[in-house]
């Protein structure tokens, strides 16, 4: 019986030094981090956080400022603020994007970062990358009107338009690999334990 297999053909060879391709991604740092963190696994444990304050109605404001990683407390360059609300057609004031749109922003941002990083690693020069993301949802679920309809998305579709020096097959591989290595793609497609409690 065979537990492994030999088919792990390499894609475009990695070129780290003297690489004319520049997508603004420091691949060397990422590869270095991978090596360093494999040797010091406790430093690889990260905690990401956000804090939320209710404003009024469905409007809240969340801030993102710090996180834990590399064995210590880390701070963003600045504190980021996000207004979250529901739209006027839900009888709300529309002071910000809806929570589900933040999920879409998170997913497409993660995949796009992945596209740039993988392209850099594979020596593909990007000229432009745009993506349109949609999540389909039947709101009878969140309204509690139909127990057979889930609250969340029925499906999410992402359509990338990429202008780059690469074949269509290479670009297919690029977006496939970016999904494979995406944290948010994993979060959206796989179950996650969530604990919500009272302080």
């Amino acid at each position, binding site marked *: *019986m*065979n*537990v*492994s*297999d*030999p*088919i*792990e*053909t*390499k*894609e475009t060879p*990695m070129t780290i030094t003297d690489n004319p391709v520049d997508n603004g991604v420091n691949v060397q740092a990422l590869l270095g981090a991978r090596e360093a963190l494999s040797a010091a*696994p406790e430093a690889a444990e990260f905690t990401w956080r956000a804090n939320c304050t209710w404003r009024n109605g469905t409007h809240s404001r969340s801030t993102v400022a710090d996180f834990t990683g590399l064995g210590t407390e880390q701070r963003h360059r600045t504190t980021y603020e996000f207004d979250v609300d529901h739209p006027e057609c839900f009888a709300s004031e529309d002071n910000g994007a809806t929570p589900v749109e933040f999920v879409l922003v998170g997913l497409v941002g993660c995949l796009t970062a992945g596209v740039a990083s993988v392209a850099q690693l594979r020596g593909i020069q990007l000229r432009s990358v745009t993506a349109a993301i949609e999540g389909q949802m039947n709101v009878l679920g969140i309204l509690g009107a139909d127990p057979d309809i889930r609250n969340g998305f029925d*499906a999410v579709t992402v359509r990338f338009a990429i202008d780059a020096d690469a074949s269509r*097959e290479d670009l*297919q*591989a690029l977006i*496939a*690999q970016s*999904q*494979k290595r995406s944290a948010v*793609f*994993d979060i*959206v*497609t*796989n*179950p996650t334990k969530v604990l919500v409690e009272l302080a």
Partner: protein
Amino acid sequence: MQTTAVVIGAGHAGLAMSRRLTERSIDHVVLERGEVANSWRTQRWPSLRLLTPNWQTRLPGHDYAGDDPDGYMPVAEVVATLTRYARLVCAPVRTATTVHAVRALSRGFEIQANDDLLHARAVVLATGACSQPAIPGIADAVPESITMLTPLTYRDPGQLPEGGVLVVGASATGIQLAGEIHRSGRPVTLAVGEHVRLPRTYRGRDIFWWLEATGLLAERYDQIDDLTRARHLPSPQLTGTPEAITTDLNALTAQGIRMVGRLGRVADGVAQFSGSLANTCALADLKMNRFLNRADEWATASGLDDELPPPHRFAPTHVDPRAPLELDLTTGEITTVLWATGFRPDHSWLDIPVRDRTGHLRHDGGVVTRAPGLYVLGMPVLRTRASTYIHGAGTDSEALADHLHSFLSRRR
């Protein structure tokens, strides 16, 4: 008892090593808990055939000489072949001898086997990579009403209750057993994670012919970019059948088997599957096509295009957009869960600190790190990509026997 070397395990790897040691006049014994080819006798389902064609199933000093070089050896014939090979190479096998502990001494090793203590200057671990099923922790959450099996306990569909079967894992084992169980009239749902898709034959030749001819199987462990990944790759979705049929996911879907994503969790009796199935299949298709491109380029460069049928590509994996994300295991629809989630070696009796933090043996191409005189053989991508397969033991055992020989000379 004192001997120069002890080989643990009389499977293909241990026997190949025994032959190499004999060639070098190195005094040794092969300790075997059961009989020669014990795992093949006792821990493999009877319908299993090797993934590799017979012509490739060669051992040091022994090429396949049967009348079906392009066939795939049934497990009973593997047992017979290894038994004959043990006799051919006069392997000093001690059967029914279970190793309970291996300890490092200031010079050499102490091996506790049955009630005896053996002393040796070198030890070769050849107990195999598939000693135990690797079952994920989520198995604990499967309702008690469900029968659970592993490939090591599975024999044939007759031992399963009637009803639906969830096969978890779509590598060589999972797809073979899914097909066999579905044919028995038990509807199979197959949970598909990351996998390696390959056609059984391409341009009239077995895929292993291509893997060998293109030089891929000969790629050395120290020249592979991501060795950890290479060593943990799932086995290809291949089956050895007399008809040499391709058993990819499209073939299983056509058979009526239902595909779902990777099993992520079982919560309140409900199995939840990943929504990433489409990308998982896209990755496998892309990877297969990259290899076929490489194969075609090699054929052209080798001037074989006139001799071989023309290149072609296989249909992309069809993923049903309605593939369910959940399956309630409490309704009675599913009565069995089969964990085809891989295997792990069992070196629990090795009482020497040679493991990394994830429990894997640290070794450099089979030379165990910081334990001079200790070797491991018969593991995936040990020294080359061929190491995963039976014939890989030929070159691996030669390299390690050379190393062992010079180790003994240095210490003398």
